[in-house]
């Protein structure tokens, strides 16, 4: 059984997914398109237009993938449903039909949304803030539980060609396919480990095939521009081999697999998913040939009694602007400009809880250690001023003052820009008992509104 990864983020490239479908004999294509805060943003979009609230690139992916899926008998699984899996499934049918693929049988997974439920449980503890959920309730925009592989398994069991979910844990999308295909149960811990490990390696698409990896001269990636998406051959016995299209760009080997195995993992012996607690400490990667790696040694403990719920909430506005200086005294001019911007912002009644001044080229990414020898002055620098503001006007004002620096600040200011105010959708999380969540599978196989 072969699963391909067709996307690893909401705006991931489409062409490598087409390449996989065309030449790699897939049985399933899994597209992971949902970052932590995406659902909160899409929940707000859905409030504005009830038919929206799903992944913005859904139409493009469906038009590119569904003709090939139909032709080759590949079934699509994706969390592109975001805050509106039912609406997304209808959109899949519509866009597929426009691409010449009629009557796509879709299954939408709903029930991850638990906003109303959480409103009656203000006592829950926020994992990041350490406070009670109560403090966020007035500003809560969304609350979605990470569902597990069972919903994907059950949705595939309906015979659907396309399974569209909202919040499902990334690796569970892949494990669900394997549980369905091989008939695995929650009692088979080594198999759950294998399927979860497969999902963890594939969920970020190119991050296992040479993306997020190249360091020229130290660890090179051949033909980086032609990176390909990975696939996995998962046996009924839990054997795993990861591959990529033969002759494609990028690299797939022990090094790329090891980096991805530990990606976004805290305790490597206890990676908690809705399906199991994965232990990667005994995992090994064996290079079987170019573009082919065998994965062994994943272990798991049984799943926990709780599910993690991501809570999205509105948290004011962020505004920013940028401008550049070069040549003699460039850094001092940038610093003077930053002081002027902040003074004007206050003079005109701007409100900010926090202002950040970055010198891009010196301190923007790795900060300022306070030791001048750590951050030698570059020939040119781009000043960035960002502010967290309680209101939209203030967030716009900070950028305006940066934008106006070409005339209103130190001499020779290049390329000033106000990057515009953006409403902040922040996320935190709570744990809730599994039994509180009641997912459902809805078949969308007729064009009804």
């Amino acid at each position, binding site marked *: 059984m072969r699963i391909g990864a067709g996307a690893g983020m909401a705006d991931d490239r489409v062409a490598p997914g087409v390449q996989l479908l065309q030449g790699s004999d897939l049985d399933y294509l899994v597209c992971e398109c949902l970052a932590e805060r995406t659902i909160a943003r899409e929940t707000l979009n859905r409030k504005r237009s009830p038919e929206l609230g799903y992944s913005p690139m859904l139409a493009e992916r469906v038009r590119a993938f569904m003709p090939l899926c139909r032709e080759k008998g590949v079934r699509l699984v994706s969390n592109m449903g975001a805050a509106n899996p039912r609406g997304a499934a209808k959109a899949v049918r519509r866009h597929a039909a426009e691409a010449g693929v009629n009557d796509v049988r879709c299954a939408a997974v709903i029930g991850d949304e638990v906003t109303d439920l959480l409103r009656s449980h203000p006592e829950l503890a926020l994992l990041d803030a350490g406070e009670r959920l109560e403090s966020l309730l007035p500003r809560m925009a969304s609350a979605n539980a990470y569902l597990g592989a069972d919903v994907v398994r059950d949705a595939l069991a309906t015979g659907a060609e396309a399974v569209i979910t909202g919040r499902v844990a990334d690796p569970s999308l892949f494990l669900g396919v394997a549980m369905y295909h091989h008939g695995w149960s929650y009692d088979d811990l080594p198999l759950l480990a294998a399927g979860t490990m497969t999902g963890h390696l594939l969920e970020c698409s190119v991050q296992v095939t040479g993306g997020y990896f190249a360091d020229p001269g130290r660890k090179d990636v051949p033909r980086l521009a032609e990176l390909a998406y990975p696939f996995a051959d998962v046996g009924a016995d839990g054997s795993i081999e990861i591959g990529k299209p033969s002759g494609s760009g990028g690299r797939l080997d022990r090094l790329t697999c*090891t980096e991805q195995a*530990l*990606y976004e993992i*805290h305790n490597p012996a206890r990676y908690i998913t809705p399906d199991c607690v994965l232990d990667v*400490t005994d995992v090994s990667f064996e290079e079987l040939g170019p573009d082919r790696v065998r994965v062994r040694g994943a272990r798991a403990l049984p799943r926990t009694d709780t599910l993690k719920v991501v809570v999205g909430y509105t948290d004011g506005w962020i505004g920013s602007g940028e401008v550049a200086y070069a040549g003699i005294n460039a850094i001092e001019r940038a610093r003077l400009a930053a002081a002027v911007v902040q003074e004007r912002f206050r003079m005109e009644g701007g409100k900010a809880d926090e202002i950040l001044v970055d010198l891009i080229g010196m301190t923007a990414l790795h900060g300022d250690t*306070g030791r001048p020898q750590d951050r030698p002055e570059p020939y040119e620098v781009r000043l960035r001023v960002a502010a967290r503001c309680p209101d939209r006007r203030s967030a716009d004002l900070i950028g305006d003052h940066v934008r106006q620096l070409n005339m209103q600040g130190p001499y020779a200011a290049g390329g000033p820009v106000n990057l515009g105010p953006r409403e902040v959708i922040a996320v935190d999380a709570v744990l809730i008992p599994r039994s509180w969540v009641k997912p459902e599978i809805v078949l969308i196989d007729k064009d009804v509104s």
Partner: protein
Amino acid sequence: MTLVHDIAHARSGDKGNTSNVAVIAYDDAGYERIQRHLTSERVMAAYAHLAKGPVTRYEVPKLRALNFVIEKALAGGVTRSLRLDPHGKTLSAIVLAIELPDD
């Protein structure tokens, strides 16, 4: 002195306000060196101006890897941070610039 970059590669990831940096040695000798010298104290010192910490170190000898979990490292978290790199994708480059004593 040896740079971590000479003997290992790294990848950083984010969860909430926590950054994890996996450091992977190219060979067994390299793993022995990072295992001995790349302590959580050294890592905390390199990130001290960016992160409140604490730093927890996990060893994965079979993968020749150390996984550093750096708490309160992302200026409030990906979704709230004012930083240019809210995910901390560039933070793995800091650990690679740490100098390790010879021996």
